[in-house]
């Protein structure tokens, strides 16, 4: 990272998630004393106070609710953003609910701690500029099942699925999307991909690009809303990665999340999807047996 870093929490003191936002910021400063803390109230009343800092820094924005006060404060500036954190999404990602108490309870503290560690991790990774490679190749634990000659995997944690067999793997305010192992098995050898355009805004369940196999052409139906910030260009050369490693090397696109907090309600986690997938496979098998 060539620039300094500063952090701006919304500091909403009327909601526990706002208090979490504030606590995350304080924890960041504690862990990285070089980082500058921006007070949203002061920024709002006399913004020249932070002029130099903002010009020289990348910013971490932390919002506690959909009003996104912190984001709005920097929206009109030409500010370099390192990361935007949306506390409700993180709360879901880590499965920690801080409750509604304005005095943070143990869970609230735990959540703030986890988020701050996550940000620091990303910060360190970006210093080596390897962030994307690392996060795309992480190892994972999975559920597995063999049906006839087919073998299927579903990651246990970190991935969420829609009923169109596509996954999203959120990481703070961004996420990777791709297709499930079940879907790649169904379509068999993928020969060609049509990737979406970077910058495209999508809603949940919109088609984002397509892929063509020896058997068929299908659209990837996005499990979440957001803006495409990168695509896996390597798939042009290696479409087979979607078959060989659908949850990692075969990722399709990366999004800046827009409304994951709501999108998430219509998705399944790893164990839910595994169950759903097994039911689908059983049903298909019965239909096949019936036809034969």
């Amino acid at each position, binding site marked *: 990272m060539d620039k300094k870093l500063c952090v701006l929490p919304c500091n909403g003191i009327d909601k526990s998630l706002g208090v979490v936002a504030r606590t995350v910021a304080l924890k960041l400063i504690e862990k990285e004393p070089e980082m500058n803390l921006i007070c949203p109230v002061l920024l709002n009343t006399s913004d020249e106070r932070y002029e130099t800092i903002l010009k020289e820094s990348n910013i971490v924005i932390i919002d506690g609710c959909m009003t996104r006060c912190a984001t709005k404060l920097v929206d009109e500036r030409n500010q370099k953003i390192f990361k935007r954190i949306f506390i409700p999404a993180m709360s879901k990602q880590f499965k920690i609910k801080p409750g509604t108490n304005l005095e943070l309870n143990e869970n609230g503290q735990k959540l703030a701690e986890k988020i701050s560690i996550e940000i620091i991790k990303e910060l360190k990774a970006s210093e080596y500029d390897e962030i994307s490679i690392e996060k795309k190749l992480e190892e994972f634990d999975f559920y597995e099942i063999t049906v006839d000659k087919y073998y299927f995997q579903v990651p246990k944690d970190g991935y969420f699925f*829609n*009923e*169109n067999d596509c996954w999203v793997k959120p990481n703070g305010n961004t996420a990777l999307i791709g297709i499930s192992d079940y879907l790649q098995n169904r379509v068999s050898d993928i020969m060609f991909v049509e990737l979406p355009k970077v910058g495209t805004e999508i*809603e*949940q*369940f*919109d*088609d984002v690009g*397509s892929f063509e196999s020896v058997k*068929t*052409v*299908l*659209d990837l*139906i996005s499990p979440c809303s957001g803006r495409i910030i990168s695509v896996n260009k390597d798939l042009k050369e290696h479409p087979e990665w979607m078959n060989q490693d659908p949850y990692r090397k075969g990722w399709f696109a990366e999004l800046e999340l827009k409304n994951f907090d709501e999108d998430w*309600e*219509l998705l399944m986690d790893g164990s839910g999807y595994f169950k759903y997938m097994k*039911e689908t496979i*059983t*049903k298909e098998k*019965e*239909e096949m047996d*019936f036809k034969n």
Partner: protein
Amino acid sequence: MSESYDPEKETFMGVPRKKIPWWPTIDYVKCNFCMECDKFCPHDVYARIEGEEKKLIVKNQYNCVVFCRTCAKTCAPDALSFPNKREITKLIKKFRSENK
């Protein structure tokens, strides 16, 4: 034979499939009955009717996979249309929240 497959009990995202109005609509002014859509769809949504003016119909509409609209890509005269995804998502959310 199979106990688990019962179209009446099919759901999508926890909503009975029959409550979700998602399937293709054929514009018969544009359709030239090339049958590409029917050849493409693996879910037995379309049916060909010999000797009728409308040689192709949407027969098993609830077999159509919600949010899929791939067959539309095979249709050169652009005769296939689908409902608005936002509206359908809204409807799914509404049903889910009312039936928690």
